[in-house]
């Protein structure tokens, strides 16, 4: 039994995504890194054979999913209720949590300019965000972060898949350093413009 076959069987039989560690439990000879190798081999194989499915990485797990070009056929089986897409307010809130996590409700509201407790609760109910800790300060507010399910919902492998400022269709980038639109991770705007760092 080759490792590819064991990995394939495991993924095939699973309804959800499996991490390499999960899969490695299938066989004593398997290690997470050998699982990763096997997944790459299988991917190449499916590609060559033009299979209707592929192994996709969602969060830190793998799952066999159909390729998007078959969606029109599968969507005809509409008797199975489809998860409704998120509302634009929900996605907007989710975007803020994803970039600024861990973040409190008040901070979310400062950015959106509207009260956000109900949308945050909804996102919690859908397990797209979770409480990841408590902040300092008055009342030790709950801090929110995104979940594995968030990655799955948007088909991301990790938070690194979130769009960077370069991916966004903004025209104001060159101005950013001047006006101090600050963001945590992108080194794009070189430090030292002095300007105004204050936020909130």
């Amino acid at each position: 039994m080759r490792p590819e076959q064991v990995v394939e069987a495991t993924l095939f039989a699973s309804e959800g995504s499996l991490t390499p560690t999960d899969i490695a439990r299938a066989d004593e000879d398997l290690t997470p890194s050998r699982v990763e190798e096997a997944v790459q081999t299988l991917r190449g194989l499916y590609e060559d054979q033009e299979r209707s499915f592929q192994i996709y990485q969602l969060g830190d797990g793998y799952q066999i999913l159909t390729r998007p070009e078959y969606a029109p056929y599968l969507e005809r089986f509409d008797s199975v209720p489809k998860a409704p897409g998120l509302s634009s307010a929900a996605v907007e809130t989710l975007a803020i949590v994803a970039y600024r996590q861990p973040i409190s409700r008040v901070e979310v509201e400062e950015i959106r300019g509207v009260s956000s407790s109900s949308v945050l609760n909804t996102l919690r109910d859908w397990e797209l965000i979770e409480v990841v800790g408590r902040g300092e300060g008055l009342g030790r507010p709950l801090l929110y972060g995104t979940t594995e399910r968030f990655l799955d919902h948007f088909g991301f492998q990790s938070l690194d898949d979130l769009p960077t400022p370069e991916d966004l269709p903004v025209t104001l980038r060159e101005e950013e350093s001047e006006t101090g639109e600050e963001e945590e991770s992108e080194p794009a705007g070189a430090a030292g413009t002095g300007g105004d760092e204050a936020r909130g």
Partner: protein
Amino acid sequence: MAEDGDDGPEPFVVELERFHGPLDLLLHLIRSQDIDIFDIPIARITEQFQAALSAGLDRLELDRAGEFLEMASTLVRIKAQLLIPRNESPDWEEDPRADLVRRLLEYEHFQEVAQVLMSAEADRSRHFAKGYVPRIPDTAPPVEDLELTLDELMEAARGVPEPAEEAVHRAPTRRVRVSEKISLARRLLEESERVPFERLYEPWKDRYHGVAGLLGCLEMARRQAVRVRQAEAFAQVWLYRGERFWETEEEAGEEEAGALDGARLAHDLAASEEGSEG
């Protein structure tokens, strides 16, 4: 820095409910007029903002209205600050608009991220995992397919809702034909492999539709155009395409003469019901 307030406010018709909040509305005003976000004509925007508020504020809940009003007061404050000549306030370190611009830029950034997320969501929804294509209903899966007897199907018809008690007016109901239900069932089944029986009458919430739906269903089952399945008593009744589903109406129609006289049955039932009421 350009002077603002030169142009009179254009009449702006916006539906306040459409916006997520004051920042969303402000961005809309700025974008739709191609305004440079770094040089916002505060007087003009303030007037437009207030116009939008006076048009729609009363339709908002109190909390949401408060959010818009807070922004309106911020705009007015900025407008006032801008009126103070620059040289008279030596400690004017930055443009009074700067903080607002920062907030707008930050908010705009997240709106754009949200757009990207939404298209990622759409892409993701085009991938299907195991278990997507119809499972048996959520109740315990049946050991084997049950063919349904007439009695069982009649039981399901008990799920047809009674007319609402409160209904005082009795407009004459349009007589619904069994053939309409048959074509409805065909149409639904062309789109998806199986259809819950309720789909045949649910939108109408009317007993006549229920009866016609049931008779149509029986007629189609007789022609083998549908198969009717139910996992257990009182469970969901499902219609599936039958062996002869794809045969044309004409082929099937030839048997019409020998068909169950649905219209008549429906009529009788209606008559008996009226009798029981009267």
